[in-house]
């Protein structure tokens, strides 16, 4: 049987050095593909377009590292830990081309892409300044039309099929069947891409998949490659595996407020480590990680 399991380094190496369009699966501070983004930064993948429903820590890192040319999203945060300061500053300074949507209009664009339909008509965005800004930029993903059935005004949201999507999940088998525990806001994002990479906490047997088919939210045929990266969302949470690391999130929130402190953070933790394990060791290793392991009943 063919295995889709590769190392994180190999997966990231498949992405062109310049100009790739990548959809990210994180949401604020949960199931973010942090290890993947660390490796993207190490391999210096430039001029990226990033698409995401609600952005999170991994997106802020990538923008802060100066690798993002364009972003399509509906905003985001570090929840109560703070804002996405690197993204905000890049927008304020006009350093990136930011296309702002509402969360659902992004989600529906991914859905259309995942289903192979050309667009989805919806009422979302009507009357908003997001719509005005997109129309002013002559964004080719958005048209205001009247439905030929009811004659009402709709926004036609063009299908989005990014070159790559990357999500972090709890489990996958070698074939690429993906299990997500808890909410799976990022499933349409994942399925929309031309190539889907999934980093997981644990690669499991296909026997485990076959005993739990109702937990499989992405069947193997959508998946290009799987990388096993335990704690791959640290310092963000992974339901049923580990809680977010409060101190590290505070450290990031603080560092990201200031460009030079952010650069130090990047140098210390990302560029100054050869891989994600080394980063995890550097911030405290197993002693630190043991503290955030999830309770099996509560899942956090």
């Amino acid at each position, binding site marked *: 049987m063919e295995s889709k399991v590769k190392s994180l380094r190999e997966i990231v190496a498949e992405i062109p050095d310049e100009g790739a369009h990548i959809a990210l699966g994180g*949401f*604020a*501070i*949960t199931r973010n593909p942090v290890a993947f983004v660390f490796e993207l930064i190490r391999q210096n993948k430039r001029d990226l377009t990033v698409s995401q*429903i*609600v*952005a*999170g820590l991994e997106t802020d890192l990538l923008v802060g590292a100066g690798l993002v040319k364009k972003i399509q*999203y*509906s*905003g*985001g*945060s570090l*929840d*109560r*830990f703070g*804002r996405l300061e690197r*993204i*905000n500053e890049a*927008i*304020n300074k006009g350093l990136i081309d*930011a296309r*702002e949507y*509402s*969360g*659902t*209009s992004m*989600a*529906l664009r*991914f*859905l259309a892409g995942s289903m192979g339909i050309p667009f989805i008509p*919806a*009422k*979302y*965005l*009507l*009357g*908003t*300044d*997001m719509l005005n800004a997109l129309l002013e930029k002559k964004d080719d993903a958005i048209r205001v039309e009247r439905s030929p059935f009811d004659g*009402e*005004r*709709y926004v036609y949201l063009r299908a989005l099929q990014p070159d790559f999507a990357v999500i972090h999940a709890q489990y996958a088998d070698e074939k690429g069947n993906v299990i997500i525990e*808890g*909410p*799976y*806001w*990022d*499933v*349409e994002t994942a399925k929309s891409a031309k190539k889907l990479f999934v980093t997981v906490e644990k690669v499991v047997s296909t026997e485990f998949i076959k005993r739990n088919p109702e937990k499989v939210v992405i069947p193997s045929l959508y998946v290009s490659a799987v990388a096993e990266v335990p704690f791959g969302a640290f310092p963000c*949470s992974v*339901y049923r595996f580990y*809680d*977010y690391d409060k101190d590290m999130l505070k450290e990031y929130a603080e560092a990201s407020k200031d460009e030079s402190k952010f650069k130090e953070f990047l140098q210390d933790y990302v560029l100054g480590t050869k891989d994600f394990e080394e980063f995890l060791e550097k911030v405290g290793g197993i002693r630190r990680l043991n503290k955030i392991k*999830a309770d099996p009943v*509560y*899942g*956090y």
Partner: protein
Amino acid sequence: MSLPYTTNELMAVTAARLLRDKENVVVGLGLPQIAALLAQNTHAPNLTIIYEIGVINPEAEEMGVGVADPRLWYRAEHFTSFVGTLGSILQKGLVDVGFLGGLQVDKYGNINSTLIKTEKGIKHINGSGGAADMATWSKRLLIMMRHEKRKIVESVDYLTSVGYLRGYESRREEGLPMPEDVKIITNLCVFGFDEETRSLKLLSIHPGVKLEDVLQNTGVPLEISGEVKFTDEPTTEELELLRNKIDPQRMYI
């Protein structure tokens, strides 16, 4: 005669009373969540609570830091995607009440969740996430905000969530469904909207608050006609539920 209470407690109780049994509500962290839980524990036991991230009817034992916090997902009845919540349940018209906050709200109930225009230029803060979408399709909107002159304004710097747009029938003309009701609950008062002009209207001021305080802290001129009502006070039962059951760590009340 009830116990002494905090402003946040009053806000939560006021919001909870606006929820009806068997309704479906989309809430975020903080006072909206507290309000929904209080309603569920009092007059609305069959309330359905939805988090946009894809969680329905959880029974959290701890407050969290946001809807991305697994603390809020404990004992959920259903997990789904963003498309499953706001792209389906909401869009099909099944959401009765959407709770909203934001950086600014204007006299037609429009909200800005994204950025502030300053003399130095644009200051990007956040983004609308699912808030814009909730404003599109929820039957009723409940906005909860700090009451400051720079936050309740004539016109928002950037319109993310549509309230009544430019007033009158403008929202409908834009192609949007009209909400049945929009209310703003602040730390000073409760606002509604005029049925014809759809502009901001004072409904009640909180006990202990002076009308002047409201007028001075509102960036929109208010027409006051007749006697101003006071917001109903919390009952002892409501306060005890809030303090002992819903937010015992007093994170939000």
